[in-house]
């Protein structure tokens, strides 16, 4: 059921900062990312690994899903990261620099071995695959299908645009292609699609516009690098009143049809099929998370 979990926001927290590691879950992000990769300078990789391990052991992360961005297995740090982190069973690792199904399979095998050695049911820890290159972009479907551990696809905007030779702009048109690839591959595999970060922590309007755009494209959430960005992204991922009303009517019609034992659902004289019902379910889940259904915000 991990793929169904709400992941509107995933907050990056550097693995080098004990205070931030302790407080990561209070900001209301759906998911937190304890980072061992790019947020940690090479000389501090060891210390960060210990800090993150201890945080996973000791910090009560109430309310937020806890994930760890490990270093890729192709680096000198990746294997040690897995050995330290997997025994503590975070909900998922975020695996950077995924280029092919082999990367996932290699990680899967290693994770299974560590899980078995530590008395953890194999497959407990999920994988959120991060693609950061043209090759990875081309192979997204096979990456998503490479293991049942894969629960979501994500991409690294900076590395990806550098790899394809694009220039990063505020508008982000250069990301159209990878975004489309991530969405399509995720939907084929039945996993979530997560958007990359918006780098300017002071531009809340720009962040909102981008978050809204990616929600309408089909993304399930967006990574954030500052707690202030969380409420803005959540707002963008909050359905409009009209969307909620329509979704409620679709679900009511669906329930009514189910009770009559018919698979044919009609609303306002139009046929409602499974994707429309699925979309309505998603809208209502987002609305509930935003507090629009219960009066809670």
């Amino acid at each position, binding site marked *: 059921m991990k793929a169904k979990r709400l992941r509107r926001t995933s907050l990056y927290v550097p693995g080098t900062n004990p205070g931030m590691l302790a407080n990561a879950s209070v900001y209301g992000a759906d998911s937190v990312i304890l980072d061992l990769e790019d947020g940690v300078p090479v000389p501090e990789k060891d210390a960060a690994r210990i800090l993150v391990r201890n945080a996973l052991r000791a910090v009560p992360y109430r309310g937020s899903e806890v994930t760890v961005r490990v270093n890729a297995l192709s680096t000198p740090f990746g294997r040690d990261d897995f050995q330290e982190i997997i025994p503590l069973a975070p909900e998922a690792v975020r695996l950077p620099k995924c280029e092919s199904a082999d990367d996932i399979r290699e990680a899967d095998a290693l994770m299974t071995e560590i899980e078995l050695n530590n008395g953890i049911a194999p497959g407990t820890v999920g994988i959120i695959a991060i693609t950061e290159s043209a090759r990875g972009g081309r192979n997204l479907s096979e990456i998503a299908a490479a293991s049942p551990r894969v629960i979501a696809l994500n991409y690294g905007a900076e590395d990806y645009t550098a790899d394809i030779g694009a220039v990063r702009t505020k508008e982000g048109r250069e990301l159209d292609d990878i975004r489309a690839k991530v969405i399509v591959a995720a939907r084929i595999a039945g996993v979530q699609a997560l958007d990359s970060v918006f780098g300017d922590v002071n531009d809340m309007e720009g962040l909102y516009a981008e978050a809204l755009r990616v929600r309408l494209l089909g993304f399930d959430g967006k990574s954030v690098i500052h707690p202030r960005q969380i409420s803005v992204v959540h707002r963008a991922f909050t359905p409009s009143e009209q969307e909620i009303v329509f979704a409620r009517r679709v679900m009511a019609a669906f329930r009514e049809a189910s009770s009559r034992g018919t698979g044919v659902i009609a609303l306002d004289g139009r046929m409602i099929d499974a994707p429309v019902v699925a979309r309505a379910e998603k809208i209502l889940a987002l609305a509930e998370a935003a507090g629009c259904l219960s*009066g*809670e915000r």
Partner: protein
Amino acid sequence: MPSIGKRREKGKIVASLEEAFRLAEVRDGMTISFHHHLRDGDLVVNMALDVLAGMGIRDLVLAPSALFPVHESLLRHVRTGVIRSIEGSVNGPVGRAASEGLFSSPVILRSHGGRVRAMQAGELRVDVAVLAAPVADAMGNLSGISGPSACGSLGYAFTDARYADRVIAVTDNLVPYPAVPFSIPQTLVDWVVPVESIGVPEKIVSGTLRVTRDPLRLIIAEQVAKVVEESGLFTDGFSMQAGAGGISLAASAFIRERMKAAGIRGSFISGGITGRSVEMLEEGLFESLLDVQSFDLEAVASLASNRGHAEMSASFYANTASKGCVVDMLDAAVLGATQVDLDFNVNVNTESDGVLLHGIGGHMDTAAGAAVTVIVTPLFRGRMPMIVDSVLTVTTPGQTVDVVVTERGVAVNPLRKDLLENLRGKGIPLVEIGDLKKMAEEFTGIPKAPSFGEKIIGIVEYRDGTIIDTIRQRI
């Protein structure tokens, strides 16, 4: 017979503090008071004590409204017997020295309102008040609104001027008579001493007066605004006090947004006044500012120019023995804490290690008076939990505390069932205070309590004069 012209020219001016002290007939064992409007930029307290020490005076009781780190040099006068004891707030090194047992008798800690009451009742008898005056004329009309050491309101100094037997004004800004507008009138002042400087301007304005950018503290501030909004008091005529700490300022900023959104026009903001309060006055969100202490230059400038910005005495502000004080008219007060316990008692005096580092300010006064008293604190600071079984020092009794807001939950005093009802179902993460304590201890564990000796180094007096707690020497 002196000529009329000479009298007018000279007024009450004397050449030096030493001469003023001789005229005031200062003797061993007397009580000398000061005000703290110049805060960490104050030069007058140290100057006065150096002069008194030089005159061979000993065994003095110091009665400042508060002392700051700049006053650390007083400690040498304690060691040499010039100062016997302190009745007044101590912040920083002087408090630490008290905790280490330097003073032979305990520091008596009173709130702003309590200090006035004690003077009024004769429990704190001041022989000589030394008033730092950013503006003074030759007859002793005094104000704080201009000059190189402008500090704004002289709210605490009113008390000293009113109740001390003799009053010496010290100024670095002698202006032609009459110094209008004046705060303290010439009828209360005996002598005026011109000096080169009474304060360091950049230290008069506190450096902490910035809205916090710490996301954790912003979460607390936003919860405070929600609590205030849903308290049932958030209607036209709303009044509040928010301190100058980062969380309080951020809470004010959130409350301001909510007032604008709801179209609410408030009545007054009281207490320490900041530029943020001034902005809300000028935007028409509040009718007036009642200023016992100006915290920044915007507040100082506003006091000089805004008709809705009134200076008030500490008695007007918080004296429970007066015929009516401002705190009793407050709807909401947002106050800090160094510890809160399961009975909602609040400690603001001693740190988690038991060292006396802070004064009371208006904490217990506003808590007692406000319709809703909100205490803000992170759940833990460093490795120390802020919610504990029993506070090390009771500064503000739990019966006067209504809500505790942390980043991980909001606890309402069970005595306030009405408030709890108002806040329920409004998206505020309500928890029991005991759960907050457990959450804190999940991170910090239960630290070993500090050890204290037998010697009492501090007495906490409630605003009505009752002794509510004592502070013992750290060992």
